[in-house]
């Protein structure tokens, strides 16, 4: 019963991921059929730019910058990263040729999947805390006691810390392969 309930909750997140791959594949095929090879070529730059822009949240999170609300920046991070990944997938297409760009692409997909998982975990943890708070309130505990109880649970902190220890290394692996792809494109391609 619990597994079934969890799966139902996961459906929108799985759909976000499927929508990414499906729409990118369709756009790639359409642009290729229409002869817009230059769009496929230069969309890689646009997608990379969007993904780089999404890291503003990461800078805010680590207090490198101080402006902007973290919650809003997180939403922008999710949107920019998803859109950037979409545009890069349009650029790459679903094919298997040179290993390095393909590694970069698959790493990016794993990072997106990881990001979507994080989004789910965050929402799930928030809901658990909310439900636990309601439960504690029903037991007529004071606000201070409730906060203390919730803090000891550390539901949100623990889950997100674990998730972060996966999401960030995956992101840098993606960055490493993407950087290699960009460097060697700059070295060998005619601009």
């Amino acid at each position, binding site marked *: 019963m619990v597994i079934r309930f969890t799966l139902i909750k996961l459906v929108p997140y799985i759909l976000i991921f499927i929508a990414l791959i499906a729409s990118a594949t369709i756009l790639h095929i359409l642009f290729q059929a229409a002869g817009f090879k230059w769009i496929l070529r230069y969309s890689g730059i646009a997608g990379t730019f969007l993904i780089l822009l999404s890291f503003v949240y990461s800078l805010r999170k680590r207090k490198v910058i101080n402006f902007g609300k973290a919650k809003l920046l997180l939403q922008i991070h999710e949107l920019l990263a998803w859109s950037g990944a979409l545009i890069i997938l349009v650029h790459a297409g679903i094919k298997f*040729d*040179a*290993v*390095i*760009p393909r*590694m970069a692409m698959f*790493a990016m997909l794993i990072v997106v999947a990881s990001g979507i998982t994080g989004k789910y975990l965050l929402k799930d943890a928030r809901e658990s805390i909310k439900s636990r708070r309601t439960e504690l309130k029903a037991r007529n505990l004071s606000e201070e006691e409730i906060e203390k109880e919730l803090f000891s649970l550390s539901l949100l902190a623990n889950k997100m810390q674990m998730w*972060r*220890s996966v999401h*960030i*290394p*995956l*992101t*840098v*692996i993606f*960055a*490493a*392969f993407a*950087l*290699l*792809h960009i460097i*060697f494109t*700059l*070295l*060998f*391609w*005619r*601009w």
Partner: protein
Amino acid sequence: MVKNTALISFLIAFGVGLIAILIFPYYTINPGVVIEDHQKLKNDCLSCHSLGEGVQTEKCVICHQLPEIGLKLVNGNVRSVTNSKSNLLHQSIIHIQCYDCHTEHNGLSRENATLKFRHDVLSIELQKKCTKCHSPQKPEDEIHLILTSECSDCHNTGAWKPSHFKHELLGERKNECRSCHENKQPADALHKGLGGTIQCIQCHTTDGWKPSTFDHTKYFQFDNNHPSDCINCHDVNKTLETYTCYNCHEHNPSRIEKEHLKEGIRSFNNCVECHRSGDKKETEGRREKRRGREREDN
């Protein structure tokens, strides 16, 4: 902890990737299969590429020397089937950049290595001499058989159509409109009545059917009593060069004769010589001149 893991992950991924690229460049970074003839160079990227500058023509022409393209193979042997058109083309290209027309990493077939040909890479002189390459394609219709000028006088390198035909290219035959524009003579009374001797060019120009230079006012000015209805004055089944004013009851031949003789005018059969409109006063000047001329004749 996360920071360290991230840094180590980055360094491992970057290092492994870099080593893989250096050892197996063809499998790690090439964007597609190189053509069959270049397969032996597939792991030596720098044989064609220059770092930071892409594929420089200077590297291509080390093997593919322009004066020999189409005539000799890369190894110096004469081709079994030479291609003088390809040779002429490659020697006529201005500011030659191989990548303007050729590409690589697009499959084994040699055909995949040639992109759509662009005429603008050729010298202006050769661009105008289409028949150097396209001689068998000249149409054998009447107009093209007459013409001896260059195709580029009417057509452009983008497409055969639309063309911009210039009648001047026909020389003396440019006025023989009917030889090309068959059955194009309008079926109205004016044109039907012209007959075969009148040439279109007498009223129209090769720049356009309109405006035409025909001006009926030079012969006779229409008014309410003399409308532009051809059949009133002309026999449209014959020719519009002749006319009569006696189709109208106002102009009774015997009365006209009587009135003109009374004024001393004996030659009055060509009415429009004096009467260029229905305005009586308009004839005054001409009448005096006419009388004077007839007196001199006597």
